[in-house]
């Protein structure tokens, strides 16, 4: 038995603090105080998550039993390199976005909604961390539900007709997905008689040969449910509306972390619950490769035809989910690390793109791609930041997007599936085809005689954007900063 350390209380405290912030928000009359409280709270949370991450890194994983019940019926939180790293990543990311939203929210959301928006966000963070930490299926399911519902609220917070439409569609699709996940859980509970992932996995080893259909059906239900929630290609229909109609900071969070949480849940369950042998026996890798390849190509191809910048970015997210899934689909250590790197890289790159596109939309009223003509002279800073994001997306070396693609390609070579790189290349070329025209249009318009005039960006927004750019280049040039954590995370998934 490892001696109990007070650090092991941190995860519970983190989650309690988030719920507390969500509940306290509506009670505080001043909006400024609410924003400040959330900023302080999130900063503390990020720091604590970093401490927990380093703790797991040095002294190994630890489990926390809620209320001290026994594992079989109680709620268990498992904090290992995997969950601790991604909890830290989520909190770090949303803290930066929160800083941005403190100014941007005034521009794109009715003032009456601010408090509700922050409360919903806190609930969302709470459920995201909960999904990552929890080691039993029922708890995980509850958190998934909370996440879907609060995300639905976030989408509709701007109170426009299109928001309601998008939120409704999102809600319907996600409810279907939740039910599907629930069926899957029920099916596998039928077999194992437990909801604790570790116990179930132990029992499944013996039970799978006896009840293969049950396991495969349950895997199918859970897989499809999570696929809908993470917008894997044929189930992506809700995503473009939802991500493009949400306000600036919310679309960055939706595209940056939320769909990644579902992907991480999927891969976590595949490794921890169903175990690798079963997954390979059921030919899941082949299904994943096909889905990922189609997603990469079709997502990019659909983005090509869009007329609105944010919708284009949303379709690009559809294709990027394919990249991540492709990394997972080879089920090797290298593939996992590459996919994790891709998740982090894509969050910052797409976050930057959504933030700058949102700024162009909410401050300068530029929505459609056609309207970008010549705006490089009016809002050069915004467009330069957008250019950095676009370069990251296309995979120009020096940005984190390139490093992610390089690692993916090398991971494919390890298992001699080099042909998978053709997806990367084709999708990359199409990325260039739809990102570069925007930049060309905005900066190199024909016979433009206007003079560069730097626009002002409010401090909080500018700081966040600068941090994003810094992270994109830092990860692109020195991936060694991040890789040890990712390798440990992949190791902890593979090891168990």
């Amino acid at each position: 038995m490892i001696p109990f350390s007070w650090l092991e209380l941190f995860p519970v405290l983190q989650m309690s603090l988030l719920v507390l912030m969500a509940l306290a928000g509506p009670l505080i009359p001043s909006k400024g105080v609410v924003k400040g409280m959330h900023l302080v709270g999130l900063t503390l949370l990020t720091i604590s998550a970093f401490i927990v991450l380093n703790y797991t890194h040095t002294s190994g994983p630890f489990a926390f039993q809620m209320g001290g019940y026994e594992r079989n019926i109680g709620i268990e939180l498992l904090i290992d390199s995997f969950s601790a790293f991604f909890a830290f990543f989520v909190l770090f990311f949303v803290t930066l976005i929160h800083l941005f939203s403190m100014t941007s929210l005034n521009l794109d959301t009715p003032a009456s909604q601010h408090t509700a928006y922050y409360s919903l966000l806190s609930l969302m963070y709470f459920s995201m961390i909960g999904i990552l930490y929890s080691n039993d299926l029922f708890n995980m399911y509850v958190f998934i539900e909370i996440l879907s519902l609060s995300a639905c609220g976030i989408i509709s917070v701007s109170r426009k007709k299109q928001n309601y439409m998008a939120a409704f569609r999102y809600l319907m699709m996600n409810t279907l997905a939740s039910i599907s996940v629930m069926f899957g859980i029920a099916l596998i509970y039928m077999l194992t008689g437990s909801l604790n992932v570790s116990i179930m996995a132990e029992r499944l080893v013996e039970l799978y040969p006896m009840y293969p259909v049950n396991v495969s059906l349950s895997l199918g239900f859970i897989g499809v449910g999570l696929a809908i929630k993470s917008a894997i290609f044929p189930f992506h229909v809700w995503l473009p509306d939802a991500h493009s109609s949400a306000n600036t900071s919310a679309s960055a969070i939706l595209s940056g972390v939320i769909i990644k949480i579902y992907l991480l849940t999927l891969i976590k369950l595949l490794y921890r619950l169903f175990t690798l042998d079963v997954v390979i026996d059921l030919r899941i890798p082949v299904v994943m490769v096909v889905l990922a390849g189609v997603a990469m190509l079709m997502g990019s191809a659909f983005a090509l035809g869009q007329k609105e910048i944010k919708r284009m970015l949303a379709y690009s997210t559809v294709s990027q989910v394919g990249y991540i899934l492709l990394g997972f689909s080879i089920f090797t250590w290298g593939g996992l690390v590459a996919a994790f790197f891709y998740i982090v890289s894509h969050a910052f790159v797409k976050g930057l793109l959504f933030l700058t596109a949102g700024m162009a939309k909410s401050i300068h009223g530029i929505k459609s791609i056609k309207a970008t003509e010549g705006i490089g002279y009016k809002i050069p800073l915004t467009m330069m930041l957008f250019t950095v994001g676009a370069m990251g997306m296309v995979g120009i070396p020096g940005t984190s997007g390139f490093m992610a693609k390089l690692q993916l390609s090398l991971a494919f070579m390890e298992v001699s599936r080099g042909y998978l790189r053709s997806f990367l290349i084709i999708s990359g070329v199409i990325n260039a085809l739809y990102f570069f025209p925007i930049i060309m249009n905005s900066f190199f318009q024909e016979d433009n005689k206007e003079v560069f005039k730097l626009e002002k960006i409010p401090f909080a927004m500018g700081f966040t954007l600068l941090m994003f750019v810094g992270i994109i280049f830092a990860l692109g040039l020195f991936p060694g900063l991040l890789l040890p954590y990712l390798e440990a995370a992949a190791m902890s998934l593979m090891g168990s």
Partner: protein
Amino acid sequence: MKLNFRSFTLQSFFLSLLSLFMMGSFVAFLINPSLFDGPFFDGFRATADFLSASRFLPFIILGMPTLSGFLRLIFNQSSLTLKDEILLITDILIIAIIMMIYPNVLAGPLRFEFNSVFNFGFSLQINMLSYIFILLAAILWFFVMMYAHEYMKKENHTRRFYVFLSLSYASTMGIFMAGDLLTLFFLYELMTLFTYILVLHNQTKNAIEAGTEYLFLGILGGFSIFIALTLIYPITGSFAFVGAHDLLASEGPAKYFIALLLFMGFGMKAGMVPLHVWLPKAHPVAPAPASSLLSGIMIKVGVFGLIQSFIYFYLPDPFTSRQGLQLLGSILIWLSLITMLFGAFFAFMQVDFKRLLAYSSISQIGFVVLGIGVAMVQGEKGGPGLAGAIMHGFNHALFKSLLFMVVGMVYIKTHEIDMRKLGGLRKKMPITFVVSLIASLSIMGMPLFNGFVSKTVLHHAIADAAKYQSSAYLWAEGLFILASVGTVAYFIKMNKMVFFGDLPPALEGITFKARSVYAPMILMALSLFLLGVFPRFLSETMIVPYLQTLSFDPEFTVYGTLNIAFFGASELWLILGIWAGGIGVYVLSMKYKWDQVKFPPWLHLEYLILFPLSALMHGLLNLIDKDHDVMDLPTYQSYQVRNYKRTFKDHLVAFTDTLNRKYESLFIKSDALIYAIGLTLMVIVLSIFAILN
């Protein structure tokens, strides 16, 4: 005459005197190092040793140009003279440093490694090959910048231009110094982005179109190098340019695929047929200083990449089996011959001054790549081929950038680029005329000028290939001579149309005084002449010492580069023949108007590639949606009005968009239905399981 010490002309004159002095002493040092013994020179030597041992050197060589561009931006309010001086003085320092480290590089390659970058390491190395190219780039940059002062006065967006020009210069230098394939790829992509801005500098319709094409081909080339490097890594375990041939040699078919990808990636930058399509568009639209550098050093990036990857990944050490190498080499030889003839032919057909030079660049790059191909075919006797390639690359950089300067001069004087509207300029601009004549004679292979030297070495190399390998290369030799004949013909045409004949009345009154441009032009013309008079200088001091460090047969290398009787009777007879042929072609074509033949537009390479793609998209669109808005297939008539590319992209977008809308509306319209079906199915399946269990 009153001297104005604040004028750019005078200052640049002193700077060029300084550079002349530096180059003179460098040459003296190369010829007789013992002249420089003594306490006075110990300081230089100590500095060079310190720089070579420390890790600052690459930062200085790459950082100074970058810095100079940004300094120019910061001193935006200062006088133009000061701003342009910054570029010149920083470059003088770089040239001095590069010259100082010559003994250190000669002793062995300098390597600089930064292992934490990219997770795989970022490394730079200066071996003799890199040294030749960075010295060339630094000197060319100096002359071009001196020239650019006058030219850029009339251009817009100069701040942006200089920043990106210096960034592309720095990244080009970086490519020449790359120590591993990943670093090379990184800088290659950066260079594509930076030069893209130079190409579309004027922001006219043509410039933007050319820039777009350049960018996308650059990205495609980059991706093919990217695949190549991910293929190489698992085989060799590293990206470094250290002998990996043994590992690669045992690999089988993969190595041919890698070679193909590398040819594509670097060949595109070098302008090899059929990946040359961007070059005749991009070079003419850029401002003259930029096209001078683009044609001078930036297309050498492709050549350098080919040589470097050939040496480190394909050159066996020692020569055991060269079966695969020969195949690759012969492919390269025939491709380069096609490039040479294609370039020469189209250069002859042009009436646009700059396009003629751009096609001429394609043709000359063919000569360079031919040398690499010969080196691959010849195996251990490959020294002369590679020497010829490096030498011709060096010489081509000098005379082609000089020719682009000449075009620039003609352009700022007359504002005319169409050669049919020019003529008789020899009286109006005598210095430019003489310089143009020297550069043309050089590129045509006239003895006493440098082009002759490298072409002779290349000719001997291909003749040796025919002698030692297969007699099929006799044909190659013939085609080589034919391409030389073509070169003579189109340069006679160019000089005739621009400088001889009658002065058009529109150009009677041109006046233009800018003495600062003459110093660089004259100095470069002088260097062409000197390198031609001393044909063994370059190979003796740099190229042969470099080739001796490789696994080529050293005696054969010396035999094929230094022991050629350059001014012997057989060479001179051959040149006489080539000249007679060239003049003959020119006279005949003038008589029968061969150079005014119009080709049907459907023969155009881009149309041939894009038409089937558009047709495919059209068919797919018809398949999924019969009553979409009618969109016509691009015809070759529509190619003539230059909207063929848009039709292809339109087709692609229309297809994917329709598909998307169909799919989504299907999903949304039947929302409830799908949910109902899904739920019922799940319930049914569940109940079946309940019954079964």
